[in-house]
């Protein structure tokens, strides 16, 4: 299994992760060897085997739709890199008209 540098670049974009040229090189090698190792799974016969997403027996967990105490705004914003007027602040998304 070979993962080329272009494919690494594509995956990094999907992951919203900027990577350096050195990382591109390293990830290309490391992911190739790890994914080659993972090819061990291919020959395992899994026809008609249900996938396991969770080991728990329970299916849906519901609670009553009742309002409960929640974090006050100041506390919820306390860790925000930037905030203003009770909101999380982010770089401008919309262009000026």
């Amino acid at each position, binding site marked *: 299994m070979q993962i080329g540098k272009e494919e690494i670049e594509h995956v990094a974009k*999907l*992951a919203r*992760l*900027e990577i350096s040229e050195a990382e591109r090189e390293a990830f290309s090698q490391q992911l190739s060897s790890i994914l080659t*190792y993972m090819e061990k799974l291919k020959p395992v016969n899994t026809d008609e085997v*249900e996938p396991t997403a969770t080991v728990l027996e329970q299916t849906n967990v519901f609670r009553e739709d009742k309002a409960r105490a929640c974090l006050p705004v100041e506390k919820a914003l306390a*860790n925000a890199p930037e905030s203003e007027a009770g909101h999380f602040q982010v*770089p401008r998304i919309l262009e000026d008209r």
Partner: protein
Amino acid sequence: MVLHKLTLRELQDKLTQGEVSAREIVHAYYLRISQVEPKIKAYITQAVDSARAQAEALDQKLKNWRRTMPLMGMPLAIKDNICTEGVLTTCASRMLGTFVPPYDATVIARLRGQGYLLLGKTNLDEFAMGSSTENSAFGPSRNPWNLGYVPGGSSGGSAAAVAADECVAALGSDTGGSIRQPAACCGVVGLKPTYGRVSRYGLVAFASSLDQIGPITKDVADAAVLLNVIAGHDPQDSTSADVSVPDYTRALKKKDVKKLKIGVPREYFAEGLDPEVEQAVRAALDQLNELGGEIIDVSLPMTGVAIATYYVIATAEASSNLARYDGVKYGLRSKQAKDLLEMYMKTRQEGFGPEVKRRIMLGTYTLSAGYYEAYYGKAQAVRTLIRRDFDAAFQEVDLIVTPVMPTPAFKLGEKIEDPLQMYLSDIYTISVNLAGIPAISLPCGFSKVGLPIGLQILGRPFQEETVLRAAYAYEQATNWRTRRPTIR
């Protein structure tokens, strides 16, 4: 009186008898920490002021108060991926370098309800991804038995703190062995409960279908005491199981394993297992046999594909869970970005270390269009087969006994350049997480160079009692726990 050498139960007795105050306990532990911490580096944050204040308040209460609580005045260390309100919780990542949680994890609320004292937050591999604590953004912790060796990981700080007497007990988290493996490396006891036994609310998510919180302690009885406090249903965690919680300390009455069938999986005693480790584990099996257990050969045929299965599932879940670190609501935000997309890309570039990036890349790749079925879908199906292996084995036996890791602790720097080699050292612990079953790690010997060797005991889902019973019987019949590291 050397307080830091005592077990949790011994220290608790001294406090309730009025022989020591909570203030003296806190003082004694920070003194110990100041002596050995420069060498061990188990802690990321020491909560000195709040621990002192809590201790003062507790001593005031104790003046005219006869109530006792299981953890009253007990100085604990908490892995730094478990949220503690008002106390820095970094996950050993630059991404959360200044993150102060606005709430307590459920396990922390439960410990607080029983009067515990938070000494500090312990080191780990960044976001619990690793087997050595070398992936910490704040530098590795050291093995108290030999400072040139890793303490294991990812809960290496918690295990090293317990082994070096820098706390009376600790909490860790275990996604693929992260409680049991460092416990084995450091010669202490580590218990991973059944998936769903302990609430994950407030545990910073790595791989949600595998993560579980558990105790790291000086002996088996202390693990039972802590499990009593943290186990139980929590409406805040939809994956927490609504299964009644027994008094786990009652499992410690028998001191034998009579009428228990103990399985030995032949696939675990194969190529790659260090002879010293094999010898120690086989001797432990003889001991369990003498204590009344019937030793039976069992097979777990899927063992050979467990690591591949685990690293597909764990990295896929991690890539999804770690998408939340976008520089908006908490954590780091890059100052170099000009627009929103750049803010995401650069924040994540600057905030994550190499192993976390590698796992995000792997997980993103295996979940991406065209590969999902071949990797993630396949791994989930193989996970079913791995669970069936255990179901079949537990039809025949009550417990399964194995090594914790193929070798004793390895040297710092030995595996860090080769991620696949690091992953392969998890061979004996990861299947337990894939199957969701409970398992304990406890000392069963030492290598020739004086490094601890761990014994792993696996049980049926929600059968922590049986696991603890066997572990306690073995521990009491042997003297390993009396051997303590000399830190130099």
